[in-house]
């Protein structure tokens, strides 16, 4: 077979971007509904976000938001947890509830012709959970098991220790699961009170994405959630500011790999530096062409896993550089990691490298919004974060506008003080 060189002569007729039909309505009681019609597949996804999570918790009741949701799925006023699971399965779907850092979520999916039913089950779980006293001990045991499992898992433990060191007195220092001590203290009345305090219409955002008719979904959401009375106002938590004191902490536990994490506090989602820090994070640790992967893994074999993380949150976020490596390489790997931090704070990033990072970042962002489940979550999340429905497009433009000097500036600013956690095998 002769070799062919494929060069396509057609002019660049790129397709127009996908146009989503989105509707938004704030009900009289403050409850927000967002609907996105997506005709491609006969499925529907629901995400109900409530402003309730780690941000409002204290060390004494850490994990209570997630604990409430674990008890909620055990049953409603109308059916047991098992009946609820079976009912959802009969719609070809699933239903979950959990507490996170800035929000708690009830999420559900189903075949779209059952959109009314799945919305009904979501409302039933959100508004009429049984929260039976008899379920509390069993769920606490289950959660304690998960905390233990997380502690036994070296990477998970290392991240938890890192956030504890980085955030200090701020609530983001404590995992959403809570601690064994806090869970032991949380009793049934506390769970009920926590649920009542936060499940107020003005704190809730419902997003629905799928093969549905927005008008019908809005009308049904009004019927299900519009009757809720407004609740007492829950103020924004006044919490000590996070304090990155640039500590280096080391731990030991049985494991195969050593874990090395270094990083600093980073801007929140709506901060003008957000896009530049996302690009910085990608230059350092975005996939196989990220600097940590190329320099530490490919060229020097000093790490097996090499990545960077920077997830948006309401209060200051964290830019984390992460290595998983053989114990004998840990010292050299940590030194090499610090050299990469020095380099990115000293020399401007090249244009090719910058463009690769932007392509990777925006491509991954598009890839992450393919399913209705993710679309519903993004819709509700951006509403909850207060950045508005045009955020994806603004974010795309902001990323494209980032220059080498922006990356240098944010590297100097946000990686000036590094908190480091090293977890070594025992």
């Amino acid at each position, binding site marked *: 077979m002769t070799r062919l060189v494929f060069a396509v002569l057609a002019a660049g007729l790129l397709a127009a971007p996908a*146009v989503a039909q989105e509707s938004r309505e704030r009900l009289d009681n403050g409850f927000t509904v967002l609907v996105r019609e997506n005709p491609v*597949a006969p*499925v529907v996804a629901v995400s109900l976000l409530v402003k309730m999570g780690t941000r409002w918790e204290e060390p004494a009741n850490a994990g209570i938001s997630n604990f409430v949701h674990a008890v909620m799925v055990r049953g409603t006023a109308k059916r047991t947890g098992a009946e609820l699971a079976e009912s959802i399965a009969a719609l070809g779907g699933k239903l979950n509830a959990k507490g996170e850092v800035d929000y708690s979520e009830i999420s559900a999916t189903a075949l779209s012709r059952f959109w009314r039913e799945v919305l009904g089950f979501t409302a039933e779980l959100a508004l009429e959970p049984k929260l039976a006293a008899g379920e509390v001990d069993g769920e606490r045991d289950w959660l304690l098991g998960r905390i233990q499992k997380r502690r036994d898992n070296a990477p998970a433990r290392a991240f938890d220790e890192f956030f504890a060191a980085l955030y200090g007195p701020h609530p983001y220092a404590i995992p959403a699961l809570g601690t064994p001590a806090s869970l032991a203290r949380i009793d049934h009345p506390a769970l009920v009170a926590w649920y009542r305090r936060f499940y107020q219409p003005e704190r809730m955002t419902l997003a629905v994405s799928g093969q549905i008719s927005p008008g019908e979904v809005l009308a049904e959401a009004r019927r299900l959630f519009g009757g809720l009375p407004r609740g007492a106002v829950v103020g924004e938590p006044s919490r000590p500011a996070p304090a990155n004191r640039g500590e280096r902490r080391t731990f030991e536990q049985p494991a195969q790999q050593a874990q090395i994490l270094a990083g600093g506090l980073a801007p929140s989602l709506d901060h003008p530096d957000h896009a530049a820090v996302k690009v910085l994070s990608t230059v350092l640790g975005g996939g*196989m062409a990220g600097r940590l992967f190329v320099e530490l893994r490919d060229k020097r074999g000093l790490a097996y896993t090499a990545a960077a993380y920077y997830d948006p949150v309401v209060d200051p976020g964290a830019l984390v550089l992460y290595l998983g490596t053989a114990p004998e390489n840990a010292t050299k790997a940590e030194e090499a990691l610090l050299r990469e931090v020095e380099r990115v704070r000293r020399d401007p990033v090249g244009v090719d490298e910058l463009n690769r990072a932007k*392509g990777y970042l925006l491509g991954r962002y598009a*890839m992450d919004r*393919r399913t209705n489940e993710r679309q519903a979550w993004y819709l509700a999340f951006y509403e909850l974060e207060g950045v508005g429905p045009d955020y994806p497009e603004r974010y795309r433009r902001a990323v494209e506008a980032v220059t080498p000097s922006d990356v240098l500036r944010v590297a100097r600013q946000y990686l000036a003080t590094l908190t480091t956690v090293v977890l070594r095998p025992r």
Partner: protein
Amino acid sequence: MARARLGLGVVLLLAGCATAGAMAPSPAATPTREVLPNGVVLIVQEQRASEVVALQLWMRMGGRDEATDELGLAHYIEHMLFKGTPTRPPGSIDTLIEGFGGTSNAFTSYDTTHYDFVVPTAHLRAGVELLADLAVNASFPPEEIESEKKVVFEEMNLIEDDPEKFLLRRLYEVAYSPHPYGRPLLGRREFIEKLDRDQLRRFYRKHFVPKSMVLVVVGAAEPALVRRLVEATFGRVEPAAPSRGATPPVPTFGPSRRVDVRRAEKQAYLGLAWQTAPLANEDVYAVDLLTSILGDSPSSRLNQTVRERLRLVATIEAGYGAFEKAGVVTVTARLEPADLDRAEAAILDVIRKVRAEGVTEAERQRALITAESSYAFDIETAEGLAKTYGQAETTWTLDNELAYLSRLRGITAAQIQAVARKYFGDDNYARVRFVPGTSSR
């Protein structure tokens, strides 16, 4: 290693089934299929769920097309295609795709192999050019051939270490051998160890011909543009005769096909396999529903009886491997070694009861919802939809795929009982048991 997954039909054809709150029908979203002059089949569908496009090259070639002294070549080529072409050095292909923010993957099964990209729409052209380049210009760099051997051995280890995967692998081997569906897709260590570049190139040139290629493009892209890009790349590949040979007949399963394997695990594993309907067979719909009713969920019959009521197994499930030339229904379970005989008898009892009394309407309905939901969530992404089309075109037909769910809906409880009687006897099955003890592999 992939078993053929039965494709289910396009749900848009079910608009008439919509219940409360039926919406206006969606714009007719159906694929277009055309055959280019050199024989490449192009299937295109515009789908604007997100701003990405899925590009998949499906080859009418898989493990079953290997000669007995070539076992593992189709899979090895799957690994090597991403390693380079004359204009793309090793490593650059992965970096290119990643730089787009895209993903790449590839799969080998008995009937087909496929190469998949998902890229943001802005990189459609580069993606098509890359896929075409891999399809005819793969360069098989010698040092990459050597280093990839470790990766393939590691893949073999992973399968052997995973009792559930290895049970299915052994069950297929015991059930089908010496038919190609009984061979190891990854090949054997001794052969891969000595594998050289000429063997790979010969196999590649023989099988990667336009008439064996099916290109599926689904996503946020204008079909007219896609067609132009594909004509300028895949359309220019020199025609050549495909070389797919005949497949020997499938053997009969029965008591002679039963093997016990000693393994290091403390628990035992049981696998049973019945010969059922291949893809082109009319029984495929009823067998699919029967398999679901037997063992697809916690509420399935095998779960309810053998696990919940009799407590003879820790897990149990049924699966349908529907291939072009044969179909197999497997029942696999993890259990205590002392319960092996009783569990097998209980499984046979459950099936006997279906043969004697049939299934209920509620079970039929639940199986339909499960099938419909699994399909609907598969096709919500561009790559999921592309996969159902590629699979159907290479092992079945696109029309059968498009009609699948509506055919499934037409199957009655009596038809489900009839296939249970036709295919599932008390003795016509192959069996593999993993029992604790010194490993004999």
